[in-house]
């Protein structure tokens, strides 16, 4: 009875709507936290992420150092915040590379069809057959371990996924009557793609990009953890965690803090991605 009374107050439709937004809200809060950390990294704690202070080494969390210090006395909170900035930058650029590269390849493959489609998509399948982290590791070894290359390597990993999505969506769009109409009035290929196809393909791609963001953060951390991403003293959640492993008994905060930060970042971006995806395709919910 109580449930009936409650549902009278709030119609079922609104309850569903509220549930649909819930993922987006929680995801936005977590992502907001990471973004705030990366924006205020330089100003909020009063410490430098690089400056060592041997007298303060391996200090437990206190008022002076809210999340403790590392093995050479650097403030862990400050470093974790700078690492957030780096992670967001790397992920943003990597996902953009994947989105742009995959989008162009997918649209061109669908638009031209035939041999172009076959060659491009076979190549994408080839890239897809490598496990992501393995491909990232080998590409980093091949390109050299700099941050720019990490962005490129992670971006390349995303290209096949985006290209498949772009191709499938474009194929759907090309069957629409308005494309036929545009062709009939003599629109050029470039204009047709930019004016008619692109606006109708871009939404699912952007949603996919949201979902890819969390994975990009994870890949960047994995590479840095292996010493193939951001190089010390540059702070990254991955290399902080790797260093922290050596001090697990005396300074567990050194491995817990970057781990929690990674978890919050990945979870936030995943929720946001899922939320937007459900919003567009509410079939399962």
């Amino acid at each position, binding site marked *: 009875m109580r449930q009936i009374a409650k549902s009278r107050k709030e119609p079922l439709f609104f309850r569903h709507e509220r549930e649909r937004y819930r993922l987006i809200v929680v995801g936005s809060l977590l992502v907001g936290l990471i973004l705030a950390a990366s924006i205020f990294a330089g100003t909020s704690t009063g410490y430098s992420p690089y400056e060592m202070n041997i007298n303060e080494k391996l200090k437990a969390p206190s008022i002076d150092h809210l999340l403790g210090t590392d093995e050479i006395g650097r403030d862990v909170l400050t470093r974790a915040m700078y690492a957030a900035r780096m992670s967001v930058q790397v992920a943003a650029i990597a996902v953009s590379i994947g989105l742009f590269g995959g989008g162009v390849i997918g649209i061109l493959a669908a638009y031209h069809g035939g041999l172009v489609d076959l060659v491009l998509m*076979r190549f994408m399948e080839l890239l897809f*057959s*490598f496990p992501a982290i393995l491909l990232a590791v*080998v590409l980093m070894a091949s390109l050299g371990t700099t941050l720019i290359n990490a962005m490129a390597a992670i971006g390349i990993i995303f290209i096949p996924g985006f290209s498949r999505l772009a191709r499938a969506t474009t194929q759907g769009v090309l069957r629409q009557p308005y494309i036929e109409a545009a062709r009939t009035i003599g629109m050029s290929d470039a204009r047709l793609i930019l004016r008619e196809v692109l606006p109708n393909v871009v939404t699912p791609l952007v949603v996919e990009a949201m979902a890819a963001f969390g994975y990009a953060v994870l890949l960047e951390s994995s590479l840095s953890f292996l010493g193939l991403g951001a190089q010390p003293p540059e702070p990254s959640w991955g290399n902080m965690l790797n260093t922290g492993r050596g001090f697990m008994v005396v300074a567990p905060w050194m*491995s*817990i803090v970057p*781990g929690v930060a990674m*978890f919050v970042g*990945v979870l936030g971006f995943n929720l946001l991605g899922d939320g937007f995806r459900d919003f567009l395709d509410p079939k399962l919910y």
Partner: protein
Amino acid sequence: MFRVIGQRVAAFLPTLLATSFAIFIVVNVVPGSAARAALGITATPQAIARFENELGLDRPIFVQYLDWLSRVVTGDFGTSFQGRVPVGPDIARRLPVTLELAVLAFVIANLIAVPLGALAAFHHKRKIDTVITLLATLLGAVPNFWLSTLLILVFSLILRILPAGGFVSIATDPVRNLKLMIMPSLSLGIVSSALLLRIMRASMIEVLSTDYIRTALAKGATDSVVVWRHSIRNGLIPFLTVGAVEFGWLFGGVVIIEDIFLLPGIGSMVLVGIVNRDYPVLMASVLVITTVVLIANMLADIVATLLDPRQISIR
């Protein structure tokens, strides 16, 4: 049916060939000369030239590829630059370690994903579904190398009940082997279960909402008959395909996990190859991992066809 299986196997070989070429190209553009890495920074240009000439590194890249490929198909993976020992026996020694790790992790992932996914689907939109879905979301965001670190902290350093790393073969000491393998496979398996769980849930929800399930229920079939006789088989088809991809992901993930737990598998071999710029080691280890992944994908395709004969007439 045999024709379909034949087609899948026939499609596998060109893919493997293309993959091997891609690996060869990517690895051979590794900057920093292998000769420098092997001979040290004090090596004279003459010594480097001799080294490259001895190993055939001064030939055109396509010639090098064909030469490498013709030897690989006979099981000869070349000689490592660093120790000047054959790579093949090393692969044979390391592959069982990685296979054991990946299989254990995959079993753990499935033991978590299949029952929980089916349970969530069966109680769709109820509290138990919400809790399980939340769990999957949380697990999906845990980096496996962080989970490893936490497991070591709790079970090795605080409770002191499990060794933090190392390897003993299952033939030498099965109990010790299991003790050493449990944390690495849990780290890989738990994280992988998140995606599998979501797929299992989604595919079971789809099956449970079909007409034939409603008919079965209307005819008075019990819940367990509906789940086990009518739903699981159809629900497993999309799950299997994703499962194979996930197995591949797992197999790639061993690079990090083997490094953390000091396991002498193929994954740690990749890192050794990268650090030492040891091309034969790097190419062999990457090729072996990719081949296993491709075989897993092919098998999943075949099993999916066997489970769902409708696919035969479609293709």
